[in-house]
């Protein structure tokens, strides 16, 4: 082995991730996704102008992990907090990092309305179908018949209703520019997730619009499985319910941004096509 090869750094902690110990459980994919977000900041050279908003949930302490400026939001309110931050400093890059209980239950109103306003923010959504931080309660995305602490006989859809497919829901709105669902169980999937996250940030920089990346994830601790078994369970049960893929991409559809795509969709509505304030 030559000396040059020995010195070549092929992998390191991203600069935008602070050298601290996280509070994530062993085998938790949060660590991977935190890294992907930090790598994105490094690669785009935006750590200095990025403001992250972290939620209530397992990533509640993420303000200690990311090197950019951080705001800790109340439960579910990250999109509203991010809206305030972005409106004040529109040249900053603002992202919200949220789990399923935070984003799709208590914060569903904030989620939907930030999306439909087309806020120029990037939302990273970790969906592991359970409330991890509080010890494994049923989440809005828990699957039918999934056993959790608060669905001990399995999620009964007759009384607890059905899981929310957030990407599909948000894709009906005009506000979002880009919506993709990814996962991080294999190197190939991690690379795809990274690409999606990077695109979500790039869209914001380019003024294309609101971007939403759902990462289908696991919770080995509260699922009561090894990390590898958890990924297998995720592949077997979650991916059929939450299919990976792009749910909206206005640029791929041939539009310059979300506003143009929305205008095209409303082309037959006279009032919607009138320009400017009267």
């Amino acid at each position, binding site marked *: 082995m030559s000396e040059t090869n020995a010195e070549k750094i092929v992998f390191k902690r991203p600069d935008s991730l*602070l050298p601290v110990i996280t509070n994530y459980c062993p085998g938790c994919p949060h660590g991977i996704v935190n890294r992907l977000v930090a790598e994105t900041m490094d690669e785009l050279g935006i750590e*200095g102008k990025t*403001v992250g908003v972290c939620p209530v949930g397992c990533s509640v302490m993420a303000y200690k992990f990311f090197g*950019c400026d*951080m705001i800790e939001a109340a439960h579910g309110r990250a999109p*509203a*907090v991010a809206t*305030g*931050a972005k409106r004040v400093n529109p040249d900053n890059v603002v992202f919200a990092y949220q789990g399923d209980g935070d984003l799709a239950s208590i914060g569903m109103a904030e989620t939907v*309305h930030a999306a439909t306003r087309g806020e120029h923010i990037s939302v990273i959504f970790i969906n592991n179908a359970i409330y991890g931080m509080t010890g494994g309660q049923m989440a809005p995305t828990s699957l039918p018949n999934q056993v959790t602490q608060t669905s001990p006989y399995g999620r009964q859809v007759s009384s607890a209703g059905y899981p929310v497919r957030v990407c599909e829901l948000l894709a009906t709105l005009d506000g979002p520019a880009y919506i993709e669902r990814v996962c991080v169980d294999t190197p190939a999937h991690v690379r795809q997730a990274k690409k999606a996250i990077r695109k979500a940030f790039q869209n914001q920089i380019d003024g294309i619009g609101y971007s939403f990346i759902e990462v289908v994830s696991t919770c080995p601790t509260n699922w009561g499985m090894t990390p590898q078994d958890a990924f297998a369970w995720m592949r077997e049960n979650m991916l059929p319910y939450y299919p990976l893929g792009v749910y909206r991409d206005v640029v791929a559809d041939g539009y310059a941004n979300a506003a143009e795509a929305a205008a095209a969709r409303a082309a037959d509505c006279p009032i919607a096509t009138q320009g400017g304030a009267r």
Partner: protein
Amino acid sequence: MAEKVLMKGNEVLAESAIRAGCRFFFGYPITPQTELSAYMAKRMPKEGGTFLQAESEIAAINMVYGASASGARVMTSSSSPGISLKSEGVSYLAGADLPAVIINVMRGGPGLGSIQPSQSDYWQATRALGHGDFQMVVYAPSTVQEMADYVYRAFDIADKYRMPCMIMADGMLGQMMEPVELRERKTDLPAKPWATTGHQHKREHNVANSLYLTAEELDRLNHERFERYEEIKATEQLSEQYLCEDADIVVVAFGASARIARNAVRAAREQGVKVGLLRPITLWPFPVDAVRATIPQAKGYLCVEMNMGQMVEDVRLAVEGQAPVEFFGRTGGVIPTPNEVLENIIALNEKVGE
């Protein structure tokens, strides 16, 4: 001297906020603060500012939280039921030491209550707008001019002490038109080195946060915050005294009910009753010093409020049992008449004169 203009209270709150440097307003429709939001919607785009109608009061106050963390002068307004919804965000503002101005144009409660004027959110504003140990500076204007003056001041106080400040108006003051002299536009706003504006690799990362999982750390921060509150109590109490120097009876009233009480005091003076009006302008910090100054002279106190008796407890705490403190109030949007107040003054005067 600036020109006087005739304006509605709710609109003055908005205009004065803009002049104080507020460029971000997040709100949600509710009566009777309506004109305030409408004014902001019209004016903010012309000021290069942001008016955003949020999806809920909860979202609005959290937008305030994000904007405040990002260094802006920011305001939200609502009326009583909407303020209840904002209480979560106000607690987080206090816990993260973030400045903001919150307007409550009070209406009757509890529940949906009424859309008529009320003062029944006194306890909420001064005791418990949200969970946890915290206070807000609360101003209670009683004229349209004071609405202009105190919203203007509230932004400075909020920034100075890094805390939420509230203006307690009510449906009567909000709808009232009076001549008002507006302040000059503020251009020199305080620097906020703590704000989450992006560190540009020039400083450590800033964090806006209210979470402290180490008991000792949270304990220390709460004590630090309350030391700041002690400073505020010592320096920020505001009140007005009217004919209090020789008063046997001191009427204590704030906001709209103080306007009525003043008429009743004047009428009682004409009947030879030695009565004065003490009008708290800050509800927190409560003007304890001003109340205590009246104790050597006063034989009795009458608290007049548009509620079932809330501020009267603070008056009693200040008077410390040294004179009787009585209460007269109307609720539900019923505004006390000067005659009703006068009758209560005369009755108390007879009682303490015996």
